């Protein structure tokens, strides 16, 4: 029996090249920390990324890794996972990589439910190309390519994933190390495509984009931590909750006759609830945690089952017999 791996076993000798203070460091550290807990040999783990600051990730993971081309990582990972179901395949992408140029591949990997762990680092900016607005940047954002403010309406990564029929959809934050780790473990345990949006600070081109959610002084009033089977409560004093008013959700203060019983209880299998939560805009709090988790057969297992079935029915492939299929004739 090999000895258990540690965090260090997942660190490469390559110098990490992100800007000092970049949120990507914290994500890398957390991923390296939780990896040993999965008990999977390093050689069976593969990190695949596209292009962007975030997509440099595989170089720093001492596993198999593939830094590919812009936006295509989900498609490359699909080919690998389908033909090598034995591997533990992770995809690292950014908001530009995954939602702009690679949006098509992302939604198709999700709907097919390929057994991948997809981590989308959302800094709401194009980092690597030095600060243009991205498909998650807010309307009005002033960047180098939008000097008068962006007129581009953004995507919400969570609703995109839900709309693409993803079976596991979660959001977490770079600096929330514990929540990040727990969320990634949940994602990994899920069979099928797991989509995790990680809010990530780009301190160079979009600093403080998630301050509300990461600043210790105020975050409790802005974050709504989702927990399956528990009422939706938030606030520094945990004195505010989410209640339904007709078909709409509203924030209520607990007390004065309002109790936990009046609040919405989170249910990860409720797609309508997931959509509703995902669409919360201020003054509603921003949900983090697992929005949605259901089980559905994965493409890779279904495809491999078909191959096994074909082999059981037709026997292993026989090339000589295959060539002779159909009408053959002999010339003497």
């Amino acid at each position, binding site marked *: 029996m090999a000895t258990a791996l540690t965090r260090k076993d997942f660190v490469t000798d390559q110098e990490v090249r992100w800007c000092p203070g970049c949120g990507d460091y914290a994500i890398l550290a957390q991923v390296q920390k939780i990896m040993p807990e999965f008990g999977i040999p390093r050689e069976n783990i593969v990190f695949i990324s596209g292009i962007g600051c975030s997509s440099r990730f595989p170089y720093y993971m001492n596993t198999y890794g593939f830094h590919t081309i812009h936006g295509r990582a989900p498609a490359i990972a699909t080919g690998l996972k389908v033909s090598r179901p034995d591997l533990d395949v992770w995809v690292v992408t950014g908001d530009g990589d995954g939602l702009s140029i690679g949006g098509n591949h992302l939604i198709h990997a999700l709907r097919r439910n390929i057994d991948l762990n997809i981590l989308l680092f959302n800094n709401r900016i194009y980092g690597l190309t030095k600060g243009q607005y991205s498909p998650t940047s807010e309307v009005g954002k002033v960047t180098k390519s939008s000097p008068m403010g962006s007129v581009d309406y953004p995507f919400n990564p969570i609703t995109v994933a839900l709309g693409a029929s993803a079976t596991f959809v979660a959001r977490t934050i770079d600096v929330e190390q514990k929540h990040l780790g727990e969320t990634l473990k949940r994602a990994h345990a899920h069979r099928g495509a797991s989509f995790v949006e990680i809010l990530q600070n780009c301190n160079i081109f979009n600093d403080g984009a998630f301050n509300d959610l990461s600043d210790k002084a105020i975050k409790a009033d802005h974050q709504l931590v989702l927990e399956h089977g528990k009422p939706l409560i938030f606030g520094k004093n945990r004195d505010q909750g989410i209640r339904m008013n007709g078909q709409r959700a509203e924030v209520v203060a607990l007390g004065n006759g309002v109790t936990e019983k009046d609040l919405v209880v989170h249910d990860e299998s409720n797609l309508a609830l997931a959509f509703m939560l995902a669409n919360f805009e201020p003054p509603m709090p921003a949900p983090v945690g697992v929005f949605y988790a259901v089980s559905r057969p994965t493409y890779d297992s279904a495809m491999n089952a078909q191959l096994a079935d074909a082999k059981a029915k037709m026997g292993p*492939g026989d090339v000589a017999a295959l060539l002779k299929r159909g009408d053959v004739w002999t010339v003497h």
Partner: protein
Amino acid sequence: MALPPEAAGHAVESSGLGGGNAAHKPGVRRDSVVIRFAGDSGDGMQLAGMQFTAESALAGNDIATLPDFPAEIRAPAGTLAGVSGFQLNFSSREVFTAGDEPNVLVAMNPAALKANLDDLPPNGVLIVDREAFNDANLKRAGYTSNPLNDHSLDKYQVFQVDVTKLTTLALHGTGLNNRAVFRCRNLFVLGMLSWLYQRPIESTQRWLEGRFKKTPELLEANLMALKAGYNYGDTTEMFASSYEVPAATIKAGLYRNITGNSATALGFVAAAMSAGRPLFLGSYPITPASDILHELAGFKNFPVYTFQAEDEIAGVASAIGAAFGGAIALTTTSGPGMNLKAEAVGLAVKTELPLVITDVQRAGPSTGMPTKPEQADLLVAMYGRHGESPIPVIAASTPADCFDCAYEAVRLATKYMTPVILLTDNQLANGAEPWLLPDVSKLPDIKVHLATDPNGFMPYRRDTETLARPWAVPGTPGLEHRIGGLSSEDLTGNVSYSPANNELMVRTRARKIAGIAREIPPTEIFGDAQGGDLVVLGWGSTFGSLREAVKQVREKGKSVSHIHVRYLNPLPSDLGDQLRKFKKVLVPELNMGQLSKLVRADYLIDAIGFNKIQGRPFKVSELTTRILRALEG
């Protein structure tokens, strides 16, 4: 060329020998016949043509076929846009093409007649379904008077057959509705032609039994129509006699008919099994490449993975992922898809992963004529990527050659750790020919060596001879490593922006590809091996028409030879020297002159281009005329 009035095909000395079918009276002997079946796309002409081909193959003829599909799947019935055709040339001699023009044209309606009549030479045999020439159909085809009655067809031998009525009568009592009966007309025609050319119909019967296994009433109806057509030929005196096309003298062995797309699919399966690795195809449907996907999807037990991707980019990307994982990885497409795949192919060049990209070329630019052949993607295969990214390019020359080329593409990809582009085209893809089945045990061995030894492992430590880097797949303990598109250091593969290292890596990859020339067999010259007045240089699907044309001109005593290249990158190392043995080099291509550009650039030879961009193959007659002109000029 004048044909005897009663005859179809080239007459040869009549013999008293019986045909292949014992029930037949001796027929008039022909050494080759070209038939074109034409009808509405719903008339089942492809099927009739394919079955006639199968029957002819079983009768021992050499064959070449050329289907001609309409671009619209459901063009309005009876219109010119909806005409579908299938031409086959069957012969007692070796044939190289489906024939310039038909000896026999079957036209199931006025539109089919109008679309094809120009190709029928005077005295050619024209068989029509008389009832289809009604007012409505004539109008849809744009006829103002009925050509069957207005003497406009007097220069042909016209046989007006009541196909619809006779089929209806034959199927009377089957209980099938008119529509279903109408759809059996192609079998009636097939039966009639099978009689006329003494083809055995047993193979068609067997094929129908397979096809209609689950619908016995349709099976019975189709069989009845087939036999009714056959008996019609036999018992009526519509045709003065039947014709006999004796078996060709072809190499002994086991044969089957094969289209280029099928052969491509089979070549890939055979190669993957020789390599002992699973096959993975990532592909997005596109005419005329989709049949490779369809075919491979049926071979799951081998194992073959087929992944119908969301687009061409995902097709090639998924294949790259599978290659990283150790599969024999493929992507298949046609022109428009080639452009979409370019960036990902560049990634495979840089990361040196084995991958075969098949481009079944079609007429462009843009959507162009999707069902018509062209050879205009050669330069895109050679150069259609950014940066310095050389790739081996090979091209198949006949439908059966697609098998060998697909096999060879996998062999090169895995041996040299590189993407390889295989060029075929619409003519090869859907054209068929008899294929002498190879002995699987004698196919070249594809030795795949997956790295396993962590001792001294480095992702870019190369084989000293081939310069291939190791194939180290996930799951192998101790070989964990990272690759990617960024410039990377020699040996370690670590990201590196060192200028000298970048040049070293680019040049090393180029040397690796150029080195493939070492194992390209010496160039074969058909004709004058020592050189002569003119050599015709070609590549791809033009093989048949070029070979036939060169043969015909040689028969006139001229010094003309033919070289047909399979390896386009790298080109064979002796090619320049061989071409220089000839006073003139003529390069006919179905493009604006792409190989001729390469020949001029690589060898400083003043190649003469002969170019056609009509979505149609060369006619042998066009080529012989051009060759003679080049010899004179």
